[in-house]
């Protein structure tokens, strides 16, 4: 019964989205407040319906209702409750339902909280959001319905892939989807603004919080995914430049560019055409990501719930929305007003440069991701574009951006003083270079590139601190006065500084981890010893244990530095009988900000006692790789909390004008 309610709600949401698009569209044409209100009501209704549908599917998963085909294929009674709940979005159908939930949620949010929006813009945005809702809901209802019943329900389900039964991954898709779909609002705003023919500071002020929110969610989602790959796959890596990873990374890059260009449009009224273009591109890349991940057209090491036939439909949706949006852009963009002028050395120019680098970097990632497809279509040869390509193309572009980054926030609007900025930054530059040289001189083995990276990370971190010091005028005025200034800094400023600082922290972690990682693998009998740089591990014991839905072998090891025991890792190797799949449960000892990473491999017969393949990695500063993006996302959220203040200021400015 509950499942039928869900199925009905889903269909009703489709009808309401249709009503939302039509009512709001007609309301804009006739300037009718009544119809606009009806459109908003439909948007809220569609969201409510999807909440019910989603809750119904979750109920089916939690109660293990195997008469629903999706539940039978992805759940199991022996699965812990958290993963039965997470199973709701673990499959293709469920994830599309989550996508639609987020999409209608965004539409409802615009209808519900967007009181300060100009009425015309708001109504049009709701209408465009309704059109997106129609497309994705129609796809979900007709091509990927999660509520399809089975004629003969099985007694037991086929279970969720055990690799996905993990707390980080349970929350990875919702965060990622929130980010992807959050961009849909920005997209709708852009389309609405193009139709209205007006892109001004007020529009940019409305776009920025949505972009910030989506960007923060995307940052958290990608980081959770990388963290999951790091400790669940047991390969010791966290980023593989895999198509699925790139699919989530490209919208992030574009959203980052959009965040920066929207500032120029908001503060100075310039770059409006480019900002609109990025706003359209951000959601286009999100849809491209969904298509690449769901269709499986590209060979990926971690694509789940792949279905090529339905991928074509997603491609069609992508083509229709992006095609018509960019056609509209080509038609209407020349009408947009050109904004304020600025000198070649200015904050505006720095932000433009940021956008050029980010756009170029996105283009290389896009090309590298799609090149195998193009090559195969052209010549029939199967090739793969792997990490070497991206290290060669993406990294230098980002390095150039990182060198310029700390100067940007110190430049003044309109006309900046480059010499003044250099005077303020030279200490940071000296310290950064010293850090790089120290890394080159004292860390063995010698790594030139990683040392340069360390200098770069230090430059970013110290540059952010200099920026705060400049704002508070520390050392130049009394400490108490500096403190008051520090407290009084607007949250938006804190957000920016934290995001830049987080990037520096990430770069430091990434360079240390990739540059000075150590690895050792050996087949050990019980009592055997594995040497890893300054550390060594002793395998004390391996015993069988029984989990809720798996059997495992757990190795008990002791890790030593010199003679001193530093931790006792206990990696596991689990066998899930329902899928017949084994997974490795990595043991990670966190020592300061570095990781000792231990994997228990398979048992191998040998003369006498059996041996286990034990692999261990020393990942220096690896924790920073995940903390850095965390700081960036925190910066985004803090900046977002500044929103009301900024909106009030904006309204004041408008009232004065």
């Amino acid at each position, binding site marked *: 019964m509950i499942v039928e309610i869900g199925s009905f709600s889903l269909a009703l949401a489709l009808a309401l989205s249709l009503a939302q698009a039509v009512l709001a569209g007609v309301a804009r044409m006739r300037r009718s407040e009544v119809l606009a209100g009806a459109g908003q009501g439909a948007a809220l209704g569609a969201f409510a319906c999807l909440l019910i549908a989603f809750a119904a599917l979750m109920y089916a998963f939690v109660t293990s209702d195997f008469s629903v085909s999706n539940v039978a294929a992805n759940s199991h009674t022996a699965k812990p409750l958290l993963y039965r709940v997470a199973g709701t979005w673990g499959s293709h159908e469920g994830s599309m339902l989550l996508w639609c939930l987020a999409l209608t949620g965004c539409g409802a949010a615009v209808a519900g909280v967007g009181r300060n929006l100009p009425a015309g813009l708001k109504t049009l945005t709701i209408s465009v959001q309704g059109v997106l809702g129609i497309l994705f809901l129609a796809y979900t209802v007709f091509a990927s319905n999660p509520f399809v019943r089975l004629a003969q329900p099985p007694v037991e389900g086929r279970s969720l*892939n055990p*690799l996905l039964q993990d707390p980080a991954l349970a929350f990875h898709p919702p965060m990622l989807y929130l980010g992807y779909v959050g961009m849909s609002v920005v997209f709708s705003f852009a389309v609405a603004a193009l139709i209205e023919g007006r892109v001004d500071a007020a529009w940019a002020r409305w776009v920025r919080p949505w972009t910030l929110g989506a960007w923060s969610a995307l940052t958290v989602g990608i980081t959770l995914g990388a963290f999951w790959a790091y400790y669940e796959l*047991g390969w010791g890596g966290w980023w593989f430049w895999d198509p699925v990873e790139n699919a989530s990374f490209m919208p992030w890059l574009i959203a980052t560019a959009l965040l920066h260009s929207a500032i120029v449009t908001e503060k100075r009224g310039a770059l409006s055409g480019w900002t609109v273009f990025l706003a359209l591109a951000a959601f286009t890349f999100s849809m491209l990501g969904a298509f690449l991940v769901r269709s*499986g*057209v*590209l*060979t990926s*090491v*971690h*694509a*789940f719930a*792949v279905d090529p036939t339905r991928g074509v439909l997603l491609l069609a949706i992508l083509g229709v929305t992006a095609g018509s949006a960019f056609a509209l852009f080509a038609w209407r963009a020349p009408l947009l007003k050109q904004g304020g*002028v*600025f000198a*070649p050395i200015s904050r505006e*120019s720095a932000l*433009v*440069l940021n956008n*050029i*680098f980010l756009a*170029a*970097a996105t*283009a*290389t990632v896009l*090309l*590298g991701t799609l*090149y195998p497809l193009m090559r195969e279509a052209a010549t029939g*040869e*199967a*090739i*793969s*574009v*792997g990490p*070497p*390509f*991206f290290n*060669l*193309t993406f990294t*230098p*572009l980002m390095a*150039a951006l990182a060198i310029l980054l700390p100067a940007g926030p110190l430049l003044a609007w309109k006309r900046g003083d480059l010499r003044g900025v250099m005077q303020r930054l030279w200490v940071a530059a000296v310290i950064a270079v010293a850090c790089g040289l120290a890394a080159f001189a004292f860390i063995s083995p010698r790594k030139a590139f990683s040392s340069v990276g360390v200098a770069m990370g230090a430059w970013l971190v110290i540059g952010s601190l200099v920026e705060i010091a400049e704002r508070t005028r520390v050392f130049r005025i009394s400490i108490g006065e500096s403190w008051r200034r520090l407290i009084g800094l607007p949250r938006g400023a804190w957000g920016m500084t934290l995001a830049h600082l987080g990037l520096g922290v990430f770069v430091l972690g990434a360079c240390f981890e990739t540059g000075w990682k150590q690895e050792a*693998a*050996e*087949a050990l009998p019980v009592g055997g010893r594995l040497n890893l740089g300054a550390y060594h591990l002793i395998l004390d014991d391996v015993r069988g244990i029984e989990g809720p839905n798996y059997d495992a072998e757990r190795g008990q090891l002791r890790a030593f530095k010199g003679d001193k025991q530093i931790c006792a890792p206990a990696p596991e190797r689990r066998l899930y009988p329902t*899928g*017949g*799949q*084994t*997974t*490795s449960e990595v043991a990670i000892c966190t020592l300061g900000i570095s990781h000792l990473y231990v*994997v228990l*491999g*398979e048992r*191998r*017969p*040998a*003369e006498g006692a059996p*041996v286990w*393949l034990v*692999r261990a990695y020393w990942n220096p500063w690896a924790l920073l790789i995940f903390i850095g993006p965390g700081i960036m996302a925190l910066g985004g959220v803090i900046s977002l909390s500044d929103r009301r203040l900024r909106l009030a200021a904006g309204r004041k400015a408008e009232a004065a004008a």
Partner: protein
Amino acid sequence: MSWLPKSPKARRRLTLLAAIAPVLGLAVGLTLWGLSDSISYFYTPAQAAEAKPPVGRSIQLGGLVEGGSVVKHSDGRVEFTVADQLATTRIHFSGDLPDLFREGQGIVATGAFRADGDFEAKQVLAKHDERYMPREITKALKEQGEWRGEGAPPPSYQSGAAQQ
């Protein structure tokens, strides 16, 4: 500077161009270099026998793991044979095999051919998803008439069936 255009608009455009051109040039240059240098070709054993990639050149070799061919040494080294319909290649690998590595399963090995004609793998990938078959392998097998559609049991190459 007298050679600059007079109108501020044109000046701004020129500055913008001056900023974009080097970055674009850098990006295009690096991309072309990367695409000529750091892509790796995918072969099945039969295709590799035909194309004869030079010894030491990094390629990807994909196929089905032949039943009964896996030899695991106690020092951690593994040897196994991957096969397509027409040919087989012996692969040597040192390290832990992916959790989904099984006989009859499609895998993709990244590495290079050795002088003796065997393949030394640096990395062996099997998919996370147990119902999955790497796309290149599906395609290559389809072309060789071996593919039996989604969900069919993977072809078995036991007892030298590959040499038929």
